[in-house]
């Protein structure tokens, strides 16, 4: 069975949304930061058991506040990946509020939270920070090393066809 799912990466600017997508789709990475203006859309098909799922991935510009997102960007979305930067407190300080907002306004949409740039910080150090801030984190990732990137998209795809 072939199915098509739209997923959107959300989170502050500079957390690595575009980089995660680039790593997943093109298996490449760049240290240069190029601001995303508007939205870029790419697709990649993944194989989950016997099913093929084409993910239409929306890479939108970073926003500090979910409420400020253009609603059309979220139209028809099946899954969210909420990305924050493990090295920048400002990108996760409001994480629980943001997640609450998503869960109340888009209750049917799958959501994963990802702490990215984990290559830049000692994992145990960050786990402590996460505990102190009561952060709900589903995955640690690094677009730079590729750590967990494939896994995140695959797991989301699995959730989408359940």
């Amino acid at each position, binding site marked *: 069975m072939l199915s098509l799912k739209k997923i959107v990466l959300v989170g502050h600017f500079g957390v690595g949304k575009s980089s995660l997508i680039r790593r997943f789709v093109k298996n490449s990475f760049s240290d240069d930061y190029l601001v995303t203006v508007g*939205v870029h859309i790419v697709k990649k098909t993944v194989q989950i058991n016997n099913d093929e799922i084409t993910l239409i991935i929306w890479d939108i510009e970073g926003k500090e506040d979910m409420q400020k997102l253009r609603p059309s960007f979220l139209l028809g979305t099946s899954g969210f990946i909420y990305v924050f930067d493990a090295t920048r407190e400002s990108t996760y300080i409001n994480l629980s509020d943001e997640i609450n907002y998503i869960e109340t306004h888009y209750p049917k949409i799958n959501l994963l939270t990802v702490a990215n740039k984990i290559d830049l910080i000692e994992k145990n150090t960050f786990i402590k920070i996460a505990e102190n801030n009561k952060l709900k984190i589903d995955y640690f990732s690094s677009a730079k090393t590729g750590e967990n990137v494939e896994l995140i998209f695959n797991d989301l795809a699995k959730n989408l066809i359940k």
Partner: protein
Amino acid sequence: MITEFLKEKYINSKCQIIVIGHDGRITETDNYLFETNKGTQISNLHPFFETINHLLPDKNKEHVFHCVNLEINGVKGNYNIVFFSGSDALNPYLIFYDFTENCDYLQTIVQRRNDSIIALETQLLKEKQHISEKKFKNKFLANISHDLKTPLGAVLGFLEILDKTPLNNEQKDLINTIRKSGNHIKSLIDDLLDLSKIEAGELKINYNTFSVYDLINHIQKIYTPILASKNLLFNPVIQQNIPPFLVCDKTRILQIFINLLDNAFKFTNEGSVSLNITSKTINENSVEFNFSITDTGIGFPDAKQNSINSFTKFHQTDIEGSGLGLSIVTKLVENMNGKMQILSGVKQGTCVQVSIPMQTANGIVENPSINQKIPLTETCLQILIADDNEVNITLIKKMLKEYPNLTIETAKNGVEVLEIVKQKYFDLILMDIEMPEMNGFEASRKIKTHPNPTISNIPIIAITANAAEIEKYTLAGISGYVSKPFLKQDLLIAIEKIFVENLRKMNI
């Protein structure tokens, strides 16, 4: 007609309309912005249109997508896209408004803004991490030092008790060795505590007046036993015109000297250790206090030459046993706004140069109104200075040199004092208390109880570091005292007091 022309030129060229069938195939396109063909399935143009296909079944809906980046048949652009899902009367359509230029402009602005925010946040994070690492390290050091000190205290304490039990010579020797090692550990722990305090910014520099000459005396006393055991030369040289009193943290200055000299003595087996103290005037009230310690020892390995920074961490130098002394000195000098330089080479000896800005206490000493009050110039007086230390004698002589009417004699200990007073008349004795052979207290007692009244009536001013014993001195008949370190004015006032009192007595 002109409006048609302008619309064509400015609006149509920024806009493209594509009409599609309910199956998502293109039925009409004006190709103003990018080339597409009739019959093409739009989802083949770009993944964006997959989402559009999804929305087709839901009729009579209009959606606007802002700022969508598309690359269609080689043309890149950023478009606002209006999508209508079609009705019974109307086919679905898409209208593309070209915002590429705006977006490119926006891109540069947002890029600059985001870059600077990220840079700032990263910087803050680094600082925060640095501070918390430092805190952790210092707390850890402080804790471990305390934990080590308690059992070490017990070891050293019981060692003392053991030492008092009947022991043969061999056992006594062993105890001495253990004691030495124990004390060594203790001083290392103290250093660690000190260093963690300095690093944590808890160390305060307590400014007080100190005498450069006293400092050197003290240092000489400390190193006398080492000099005897090592057969080394130690030559402290103090520049003639150095202000005798300076304002700085006496204890910490001494610590700097001891740490540096400890190293110099430790790593020098033959030759000499020299200490040179000079000063350079900065302005009326302040000088640069400079000193250098030069040894003929084994020196530092090349790599560490001249580099102070290598000592600022908890690094030891490559020389085993050099301890934390140098790190502490570096930090202390830094805290006193001073500078330090090390010149060294393997087997070439080491020269450590330190320079610390200090206030002089001279301003007060040379205050003429105070000098005027003291009429020492009017009478001829014979004064005996008793001090075992040359440097002290020089200092007092210097303080009194403005009074040519004063005749000064010196004695090195109590025995000499008693000899001299029998042969000559004196108006005053300035008596250092700590002296070899016979100390100042004992000598004073002997003078005051002397059967010859010419001798027993000589006023004595005690010069002492131990102000707590003054009462004892007074009972022994001493007329006054100055406590170390003292200013010129202290000395003059003490002398004046005695003569004023004598005059009063004579009037009666």
